[in-house]
């Protein structure tokens, strides 16, 4: 069976990073009980996860094991995912906030948490357990300044 010549596009293989579409696939794999490694994007989990640099190992948590301080991947709406830290739990309602964010929280439900960060993997291949961010959460009132210092220090380090 031949297809239309018009429909032909040169075969291509692209190495690509997760986008919303891929995260749907990540959710399915986690639900199947597979662990997933990916490189998160963005600055919203600084200073603990450096978007585009660090990898994270994700696993589907049981609904009961979620605790304040966990970093989780949650599906907020169809095709809209966020990887942030749990800052409050009230029954089924879970409130998330990015460590690198100064304002703004997301409210979701236990059932919409699709994965939990088990390990953070640096580019050098070091594996570490994510901190629970207790102190970082307490320091929210001065987070703005801490992030500034962190960025300055990082710039100097990378010079």
């Amino acid at each position, binding site marked *: 069976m031949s297809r239309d010549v018009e429909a032909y596009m040169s*075969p291509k293989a692209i190495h690509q990073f997760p986008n919303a579409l891929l995260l749907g696939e990540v959710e399915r794999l986690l639900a199947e009980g597979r662990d*997933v490694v990916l490189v998160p994007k963005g600055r919203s989990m600084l200073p603990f996860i450096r978007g585009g640099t660090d990898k994270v190992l994700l696993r589907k948590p049981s609904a009961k094991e979620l605790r304040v301080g966990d970093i989780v991947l949650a599906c907020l709406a169809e095709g809209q995912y966020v990887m942030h830290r749990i800052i409050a739990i009230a029954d089924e309602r879970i409130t998330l906030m990015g460590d690198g964010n100064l304002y703004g929280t997301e409210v979701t439900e236990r059932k919409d948490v699709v994965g939990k960060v088990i390990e953070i993997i640096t580019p050098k291949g070091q594996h570490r357990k994510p901190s629970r961010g207790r102190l970082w959460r307490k320091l929210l009132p001065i987070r703005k300044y801490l992030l500034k210092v962190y960025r300055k220090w990082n710039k100097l380090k990378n010079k």
Partner: protein
Amino acid sequence: MKTKKGYALRSLGEESLLVPMSLGEAVDFSHMISLNASAAFLWKEVEDKDFDAETLVNLLVEEYGIDHDTAQHDVEALLQSWENAGIVIN
């Protein structure tokens, strides 16, 4: 040459994802390869078989009715990217 074992082709809209699937190991999306329709077609045809560039060229010509030169040119580029990605073994 042969395709490397341990990948599952999962379709994702127009594209297909080549997902590393070693049992008991994490699925690593940082090594994820996405294939467009014609590349996915070729992958499925030659998976777990011995093949060479000519095999792929013939498959493209047969399936899409394109001319041999275009197919050859495209296959060269594709094989280069497959080799760079480490998903075929010579």
